[in-house]
């Protein structure tokens, strides 16, 4: 029997060793730069402290076998760690101290490896390594948000003595493992979390940009479809516009054929007729080119733009349609409108829409009110001269309560209207940093006008 003094000395010696170990671990927690270095250092400190022969740390995998993967080890018989397979699942490989500790969150001690049945699968290898008892303490950390397990593993210690891990040792190593888990979490916080948060923010920004681009494309496509729909309304007039020069071309060509039979042929007349053919061909070509631009273009192309030219182009397309329904078109166009920065096709679309709305508004009113006025003016503002284009009609107009909703998408007063024309027109003008608005005329009808800033 050891003397009381010897027992006291042994306890004191053990407590001193633990204190030294704790100090070294704390210092390591503060100094290491990587998780691997931290885990490895801790194993080495514990073995050097003399309380254990082998120390290893395992992390729990979420694979089918619920493997406990060794991530650091130090001490005598490292091949033991490589040879034995441990699990934190319910199967036999999970019934050892490491599996129990990981699964239950409680330390698990084996006082005598020779006799403890839970240790059967690893007994031979452990005895060959010179281990007599062991302890596994859980290494568990929870994530910052929601308490999900962020780290699950075990700290495993093997001693050459039986019953080497008493209550005070369990308490000591459990506390150490808790500190280790915190240190791991802190290190990961520096490395993984900081990078992850930066990447997440960039990912969110990239997704937002992608969505905005998709929305932009959808808007442009919608605008194109609306243009095509609008042109459909002009089909009869356009056919007439193209047919007229074609008929003239045929007539002139026939005349030329006839004149060529004469001897001598009347060359002056032939030349004049052929010049007519060229002019009429160009005229038909221009109509088709204008329509093609409106139909096929889908991407916006801002550039210096002559607004007067935009107005004239649209009037060429819409004029015949108005005439077909007995509507008189008056134009008062300012000369010398300054160039603006904009997309020609988009601006044509806006004016086309306003003119066709006006044409429809006067279709069923008495003949004397079937008139549409297009006016372009220059308006001096603080930032320079703004170009204003107004389309005025004496048609059915709109009621006061309708005024606020005129530019809403899908709002329409027409029985077969989609309600997109004015909404798209406003977004186009907004995109040009301009303004589109409507006013009810004092007598009859309404005036829709848009103003565009000067080019900077």
């Amino acid at each position, binding site marked *: 029997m050891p003397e009381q003094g010897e027992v006291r000395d042994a306890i004191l010696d053990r407590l001193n060793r633990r204190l030294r170990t704790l100090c070294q671990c704390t210092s390591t927690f503060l100094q290491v730069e990587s998780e691997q270095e931290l*885990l490895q250092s801790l194993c080495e400190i514990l073995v050097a402290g003399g309380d254990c022969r082998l120390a290893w740390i395992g992390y729990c995998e979420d694979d089918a076998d619920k493997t406990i993967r060794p991530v650091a080890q130090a001490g005598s018989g490292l091949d033991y760690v490589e040879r034995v397979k441990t699990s934190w699942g319910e199967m036999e490989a999970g019934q050892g101290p490491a599996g129990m500790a990981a699964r239950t969150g409680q330390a698990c001690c084996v006082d005598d490896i020779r006799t403890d049945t839970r240790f059967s699968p690893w007994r031979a290898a452990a005895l060959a390594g010179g281990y007599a008892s062991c302890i596994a303490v859980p290494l568990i950390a929870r994530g910052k948000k929601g308490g999900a397990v962020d780290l699950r593993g075990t700290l495993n210690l093997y001693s050459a003595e039986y019953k080497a891990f008493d209550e005070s040792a369990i308490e000591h190593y459990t506390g150490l493992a808790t500190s280790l888990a915190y240190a791991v979490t802190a290190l*990961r916080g520096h490395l*993984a979390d*900081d*990078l992850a948060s*930066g*990447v997440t923010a*960039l*990912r969110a920004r990239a997704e937002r940009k992608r969505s905005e681009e998709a929305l932009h494309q959808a808007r442009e496509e919608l605008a194109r479809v609306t243009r095509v729909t609008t042109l459909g309304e002009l089909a009869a007039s356009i056919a007439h516009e193209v047919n007229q020069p074609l008929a003239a071309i045929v007539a002139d060509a026939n005349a030329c054929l006839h004149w060529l039979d004469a001897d001598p042929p009347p060359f002056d007349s032939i030349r004049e007729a052929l010049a007519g053919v060229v002019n009429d061909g160009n005229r038909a070509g221009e109509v088709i080119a204008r329509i093609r631009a409106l139909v096929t273009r889908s991407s916006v192309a801002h550039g210096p733009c002559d607004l007067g030219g935009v107005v004239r182009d649209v009037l060429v397309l819409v004029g015949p349609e108005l005439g077909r329904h007995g509507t008189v078109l008056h134009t008062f166009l300012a000369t010398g409108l300054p160039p603006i920065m904009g997309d020609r096709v988009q601006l044509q679309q806006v004016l086309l829409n306003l003119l066709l709305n006006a044409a429809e508004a006067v279709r069923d009113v008495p003949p004397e009110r079937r008139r549409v006025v297009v006016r372009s003016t220059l308006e001096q503002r603080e930032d320079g001269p703004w170009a204003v284009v107004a389309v005025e009609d004496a048609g059915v107009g709109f009621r006061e309560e309708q005024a606020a909703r005129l530019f809403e998408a899908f709002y329409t007063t027409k029985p077969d209207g989609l309600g997109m024309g004015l909404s798209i027109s406003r977004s186009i003008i907004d995109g040009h940093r301009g303004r589109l608005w409507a006013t009810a005329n004092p007598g009859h009808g309404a005036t829709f006008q848009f103003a565009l800033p000067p080019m900077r």
Partner: protein
Amino acid sequence: MLPTEPVGSIPRPAALIAGVQDFQAGRISQRELSALYDAAVQDTIQRLEATGSPVITDGEQAKHSFATYSIHGLDNLSPDGVPIPFADGHIRHFPRLISGPFRYKTPADVYLEAAQRYAHVPVKQAVVSASALSLLYPQGGIRGYSREEYLDALITEQEGEIRRCLEMGAHVVQMDFTEGRLSIKLDPSRRLLQSFIDLNNLVLERFSAEERKRIGVHTCPGADRHSTHSADVDYAELLPSLFALKANNFCVQLASEPDRKRVLRMIREHVRDGQRIFVGVIDPLDPRVETPEEVRDRILEASDYIAPDRLGTTDDCGFAPFSDDTSRTRETAFDKIRARVAGTALASRLLGLE
């Protein structure tokens, strides 16, 4: 024939290594140093072409290192960044960013332009991954320059670098992702690896599917002097995530793996549609030059797991990723590449791919 291409670097000539030291000591001018770089690039390309390699690189002769070529010489860096410990005990330190804004100083297209002046066959261009350079940003942050700002600038720089290389006609642009396995050592939870993958994908997603056909990724456990930094990390930790990178070509270190068949099984399990695997058939760290027959057998072994139309060959790693590494000779590197080309031809014949 099976496609075959190098990873990148070739040991620098002794005259160049001495010249760099002379320049640092102020004994020669920048112009004289540039002439040495130029001569090394020209000689390397000439000798690489002589190996019969259908695709070459500039041997990274003018690069300070595979990881720091774009930032070397920036005045807002400090040398005391993240340490990269190698298995033999030596440590390379990554630089640390000390202030913003961040811009590349010498992007990869500068090197490509020089190489294309001398090359007669397609040139491959390596670029360092955004994930590697993400380690430049210090853990404590930089006042007035957030990590998000830094990462945004980094992605923009890398997109520009890759896009210019593609536009200049690079055969393929290879993103060097050697920190994949290393990240498991730094963070066994694999969250760091996931962030690396996410970050690199933010770069790759800026390219169209057609452009990505000419973008590759190289992975290896590092090679410096006679050692690696993360060969002890099991490939199983990396491979499932690696193929989540939105690239089409993967140059995968394989020759030096202790159990190649196991790695090939994992590749077969995780590779995605449209991805081609260039298996490493040459081990740059092994001083012995492989025979063409050895290379052939390694390829045939790989073809048991990867269909020949999705297979290619490469070296496990560059032969001198760091410019001052003299542990291998240029002659050995060229001999090994010659063996790769010859062995690939032998295997192609047997696989009916001539």
